């Protein structure tokens, strides 16, 4: 009666287990299907000229080089604007702010910011930066607007990373006479870098994927930059914006080639984020 050898097959467990396997398989299959779909659609048209020329009626080329440049341009300018503000804000919130109420208000504001649909950022950018400040459709306008949008990701990640730095490091640094900023610079920020970098890469992902904001603010310009600095005030469409317009024009071959490039870039960034997390995981490694 009380023998140990009475193992029963528990059917409910087995069924649930099968379902769980199935759903994880489905997730994987969907990702795979999408990538294969894009590959199949894009591969027949793949040609080098598409990636090495810009769209030009004069030269008769129809490539996306200018859009690739614009994308990089937007990423760089946006990060240049948003990183100091986001990381600075995080340092303030985690190391300087004394008033808990105030910290809560700012955290709430960041939550609100991150919940706003991106098209509303686009509208705001168009009206405020574009019309009121006279930036029109320009890369600068797009970057300023995107900065607002990615601020919560940057701040939140940096804040989290800083709050994960052991309290004992702060004690040790203060105990030896380090002034606050010196301690932040030499001990806290280096320890928090993996978290901060993760935030930056996630933000880059958002920038690369964004189209609604940019259609309204950076426009769809496809000319090659004539000067690096001057380009910031020109309209410049990123890859996603170009993709959007190619779809509108039913130019599917171009659309899928851009899609393929975007998928590769996003996968690459994910891999990079993972690598950074792993590389720095061992504290101090």
């Amino acid at each position: 009666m009380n023998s140990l050898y009475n193992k029963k097959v528990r059917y409910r467990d087995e069924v649930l287990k099968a379902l769980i396997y199935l759903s994880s398989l489905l997730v994987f299959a969907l990702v795979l299907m999408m990538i294969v779909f894009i590959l199949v659609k894009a591969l027949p048209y793949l040609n080098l000229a598409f990636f090495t020329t810009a769209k030009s009626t004069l030269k008769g080329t129809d490539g996306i080089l200018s859009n690739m440049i614009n994308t990089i341009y937007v990423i760089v300018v946006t990060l240049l604007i948003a990183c100091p503000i986001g990381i600075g804000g995080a340092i303030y919130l985690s190391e300087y702010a004394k008033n808990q109420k105030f910290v809560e208000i700012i955290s709430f504001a960041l939550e609100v910011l991150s919940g706003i649909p991106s098209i509303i950022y686009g509208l705001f950018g168009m009206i405020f930066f574009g019309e009121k400040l006279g930036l029109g459709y320009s890369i600068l306008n797009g970057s300023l607007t995107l900065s607002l949008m990615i601020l919560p990701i940057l701040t939140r990640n940096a804040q989290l990373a800083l709050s994960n730095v052991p309290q004992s490091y702060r004690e040790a640094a203060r105990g030896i006479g380090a002034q606050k900023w010196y301690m932040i610079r030499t001990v806290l920020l280096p320890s928090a870098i993996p978290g901060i970098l993760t935030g930056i890469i996630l933000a880059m992902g958002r920038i690369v994927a964004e189209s609604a904001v940019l259609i309204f603010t950076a426009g769809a310009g496809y000319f090659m930059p004539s000067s690096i600095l001057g380009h910031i005030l020109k309209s410049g469409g990123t890859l996603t914006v170009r993709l959007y317009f190619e779809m509108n024009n039913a130019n599917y071959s171009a659309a899928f080639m851009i899609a393929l490039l975007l998928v590769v870039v996003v996968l690459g960034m994910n891999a990079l984020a993972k690598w950074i997390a792993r590389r720095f995981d061992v504290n101090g490694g």
Partner: protein
Amino acid sequence: MDSKIQVNQVNLYYGSKHALKNVSMEIPSHQITAFIGPSGCGKSTFLKIFNRMQDYVDNVKISGDIILDGENIYDPRVDPTILRKKVGMVFQQPNPFPMSIYDNVAYGPRVHGIKNKVKLDAIVRESLEQAALYEEVKDRLYSSALGLSGGQQQRLCIARCLAVKPEVILLDEPTSALDPISTSKIEELLMTLKEHYTIIIVTHNMQQAARISDKTAFFLLGEMIEYNDTMEIFANPKDKRTEDYITGRFG
């Protein structure tokens, strides 16, 4: 005997909690002074007063004077950075920075403006030697301090503290997280260091206080009950409460 620090009528409040009550004492120079007492008696709180680590705790109010070499360390003109160069601290849990062994020891001198590589090299070596760690780590000065054992990490923290050439060293239960062998190494080390430094150590381990300290102060519920030569305290406690504590009747 020269006294290094005079404490006059110190009171400390955490909010409405009266955590230190009217403490007065003199800490002798170049000796080891131990603070003993049960958990929550205020001994660690008292220790942190000497280098103003209480500045970073909210809602703390301190009154009274702490005079270090004739200067009141709570005077508004005091620069905490200079104070902490003079009064170093070693914490309960070894807390090396996630940097190389070298950079850990060089951290303090760098804080205080020493940049010259030759000078730093000399300080790092000298401090590690003083902390009896140099021989064990000389071949891996540039690898992470977090790879050291707990006892080595604590000696590294002592070296980091010594590197700014303090005059007073505060130790807050420095061996409570360590094994007996590491503990005895650190005790031996402290005995040799008192030649050059004034040492104040908080310990919950009475044998440790008896082994290494010259003076012992017994704290209970925020009051300093008794303060005397260590031999006297352990052989002839004057107060019944001290006697009860050291004979293990409570703790």
